[in-house]
C-alpha cells in the first residue's frame, strides 16, 4: 500500500459568533495516501470546506482550529500540546511563513467551487497561472510563462499561447475551471484539494472535467481530496470516501464498500437521493428535514432526528467511530452508528422521530413528546 501523505486526527474547528460557538468541524479524522482520490461528502453546512480550509490553515476570524492534529508528510500543520489546563500550539507546528512558502501551493494546492469568482477579473488568465507557478516552483518568470502555457494546453484550452493574454470574462465557466486545474497542477503539488469544483458547472462540462482530472491525476500521480455533495461524482472518481454530517465523519471506507455495503443510515439516505435513469423524480427519497445548525447539535447521534432507523438509545448515546465491516483489501470501513455498538440498539423500540417532520427543531420536539 502506498504511503500516507496527509493524516488528520480528531480535528476541531470552531467559529465564535455573537450567537454562540459554532463547532463547524468537531473531531474529524481521515487520511490521504499517495496517488489516491479521497472523497469528502456531505450536505451543505456539513463542514467539508471548513475541514479543507483547516488543513491549509486558512481559517479566518472569527474561526479557529481548536484541537486535533494535521500531519503532512512528517510535518505538523496543526498540533497541540495538552498542558492539563488548555491546549497550546506545539513547537514543531509550521510557522505562518513556512505554511506560505513551503506548503500552500507547492505541496497542497486548492481548486475552488466557483470558477467565475476564483479568477481575478482584472488580470489576464495566463498571468495568474504564471504568477502562482512562479511563486511555488523554483523557476524564473520566463520559464513560468512557458510552463503556464503548457499547462493551459494540457487541460485542453485551445490555442493556449494566444489565450494566455485573455481576461477571465472571455472564458466560459468550464474553461475557467480548466484554468484553475492548470493552476493547481502547474504548481506540482503533492495533494490537490478540490472544493466542489464541478458543482457550478453543467453536467456535460462536469463530465469532461472529471475525465480530465482522472487522466491528469494518473499522469502526475497527484493525490486529491475531492469535496462534493454528489454521490454520483464520488462513484466516478474517488478511491475512498468520507461521509460528513454536522461536523463529523459518519462513515469512511473504500468507495465500493460504501456503495455496496453501506453501514450508516445517512450514507444510505444520500445514496437513495441520487437521481438515476431507472427511477423517476417521484421515486427519489429525499432526506427528511434540514441539517440542524452546528451551534446546538442534537444530543446522542447527531443524525437521529432525521434518521429513519433511529431508536431510543440514539437520542442519548453518541456513537463511536469504529470499524464496522470487513473489506476486501483490508483497508478499514468505519462508521459511527449505534447499530454497530453494544448499547441495546437492537432491543429498543423505534423512535417516533421526524420522518414526517420538516424542521429539525420540530423533529426534536416531536421526539420528546413521543417519549412521554
Amino acid at each position, binding site marked *: 500500500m502506498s504511503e500516507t501523505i496527509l493524516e488528520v486526527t480528531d480535528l476541531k474547528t470552531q467559529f465564535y459568533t455573537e450567537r454562540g460557538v459554532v463547532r463547524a468541524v468537531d473531531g474529524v479524522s481521515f487520511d490521504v495516501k499517495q496517488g489516491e482520490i479521497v472523497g469528502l461528502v456531505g450536505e451543505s453546512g456539513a463542514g467539508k470546506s471548513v475541514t479543507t480550509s483547516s488543513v491549509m490553515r486558512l481559517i479566518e476570524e472569527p474561526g479557529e482550529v481548536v484541537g486535533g492534529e494535521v500531519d503532512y508528510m512528517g510535518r505538523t500543520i496543526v498540533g497541540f500540546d495538552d498542558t492539563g489546563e488548555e491546549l497550546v500550539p506545539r513547537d514543531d507546528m509550521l510557522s505562518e511563513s513556512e505554511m506560505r512558502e513551503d506548503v500552500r501551493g507547492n505541496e497542497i*494546492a486548492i481548486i475552488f467551487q466557483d470558477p467565475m469568482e476564483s479568477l481575478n477579473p482584472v488580470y489576464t488568465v495566463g498571468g495568474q497561472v504564471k504568477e502562482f507557478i512562479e511563486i511555488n516552483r523554483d523557476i524564473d518568470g520566463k520559464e513560468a510563462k512557458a510552463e503556464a502555457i503548457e499547462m493551459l494546453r494540457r487541460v485542453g484550452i485551445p490555442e493556449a499561447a494566444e489565450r494566455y493574454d485573455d481576461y477571465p470574462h472571455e472564458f466560459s465557466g468550464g474553461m475557467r475551471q480548466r484554468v484553475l486545474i492548470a493552476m493547481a497542477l502547474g504548481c506540482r503539488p503533492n495533494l490537490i484539494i478540490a472544493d466542489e469544483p464541478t458543482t457550478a458547472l453543467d453536467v456535460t462540462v462536469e463530465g469532461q472535467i472529471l475525465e480530465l482530472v482522472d487522466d491528469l491525476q494518473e499522469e502526475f500521480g497527484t493525490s486529491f481530496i475531492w469535496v462534493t455533495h454528489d454521490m454520483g461524482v464520488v462513484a466516478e472518481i474517488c478511491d475512498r470516501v468520507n461521509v460528513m454530517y454536522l461536523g463529523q465523519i459518519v462513515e469512511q471506507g473504500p468507495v465500493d464498500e460504501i456503495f455496496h455495503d453501506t453501514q450508516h443510515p445517512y450514507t444510505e439516505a444520500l445514496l437513495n437521493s441520487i437521481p438515476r435513469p431507472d427511477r423517476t423524480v417521484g421515486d427519489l427519497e429525499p432526506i427528511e428535514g434540514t441539517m440542524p445548525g452546528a451551534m446546538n447539535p442534537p444530543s446522542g447521534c447527531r443524525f437521529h432526528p432525521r434518521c429513519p432507523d433511529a431508536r431510543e438509545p440514539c437520542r442519548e448515546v453518541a456513537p463511536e467511530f469504529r470499524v464496522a465491516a470487513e473489506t476486501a483489501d483490508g483497508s478499514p470501513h468505519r462508521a459511527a452508528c449505534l447499530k454497530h455498538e453494544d448499547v441495546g440498539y437492537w432491543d429498543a423500540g423505534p423512535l417516533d422521530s421526524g420522518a414526517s417532520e420538516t424542521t429539525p427543531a420540530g423533529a426534536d420536539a416531536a421526539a420528546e413528546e413521543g417519549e412521554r
Partner: protein
Amino acid sequence: MGLLRYTLNRVLQSIPVMFGIAVITFLLVNSMPGNPVDIMLAEQEASPELIAAIEARYGLDEPLHIQFLNYIGLSWILGAVGIPGFVGSPPGILQGDLGFSMYYERPVADLMLTRLPPTLLLMISAFAFAIATAVPLGVLAAKRRNQPADHVSRVVALIGVSTPSFWIGIMLIILFSVQLGWLPSGRLVYPWRDPSHYGLTSQWELYYQTVRHLILPMVALGTLQMATIMRVERSSMIESLQKEYVQLARAYGVSERKIMRKHAFRPSQLPVVTLIGLNLTSAIGGAVLIEMVFSINGMGRLLIQAIQTHDYQLTIGTTVVIGFVFVIGVIITDISYAYIDPRVSYGEEN
C-alpha cells in the same frame, strides 16, 4: 483606436449638453430681478438717452428671444445665409464666441484664460492631496478592520465629511497663518508666471512659493474629498479581500503584502474612480467658497462677481466653461475604467 474614437464621440456628445447649459443659464440670469445697466450706473443720475445708449451697445434693447438668438449665434448663421434683419449680427457661442463682459469690459473668453488656470491648479492639487492621502489610509483601514487604526480613520472621515470646507479654510488661516505664521493666508503664486513678477530670482524659488501658497487652500478643499474617497476605498477593499480570488491567492502562498498591493487593490478601484469623477462637481462648488476665503482670482470668484453685477454673458460663459471642465472630468473617469477593468470595453462591438 477604439479609445480615441470613444473619446471623440464623448466630446461631440457633450456639445448638446453645453448648449443646454447655456440655454438654461441664459433663462435663469434673465429672470433675476434687477438689471445690469442700473448696476453699471450705480448711484449716478443718468438720462434716459444714456441708458438707452448703453442698452443698445450691449444689445439689451432687443426682445429677449432675439437676444437669445444673438447670444447663441443663430442670428449670425441666419445673417450668413442672408435672412434680412439678421445680416451683420455678431458671432455667438456656436461660433466659439463666449460674449463680452459688461463689468470688466473685456471678452469673456479672455477672462476665462486668466481665471481658469488658478481654479484648475487648486482643484487638481486638492484632488491629488485627497487621493494621495485617502487611498493608503483606506487600504490601511481595510487591512486593520475594526482595530484602532480603522476607528481613527472613521472618526477623521466623519469630521471631514461633516465640516464645511470654508470653515476648515478659515480655521487653517487662523492657526497656520495668523497664530503660527507658517504659511501665507491668501492669493496664489502661479508657477507659469515669471519669477520676477513676484520679486523672486529663481524658478525653484517660484515653485517653492507656489507650494507654500497652495497648501492651505488645497487642504481646505481636499479634506471633504479625502474623507469620502477614504471610506469608499476602505469598503471596496474589504469587499475585495473577501472575494474568492483573494482566498485563492492566499491558498497559493501569495504574501499578504502582495495581496494588498495587487490582488485586492486593483479590482477595488472602480468605485473609487467613479466617486472621484462624481465629486468633481461638488469640488467645483467648494472651490467657489475656497477662492473667496483665500482671495484666489479663479473661476469661483469670477462667477460670484458676475452674478452680483448682473453680468449676463460672463455668468453664462463661466457656467458653460465650468460645465465643460466637468464633462472632461467625466470622460477621463470613463476612460480610466477601461484601464482598470478589462471587462469595460470601448471597442466597436458595443
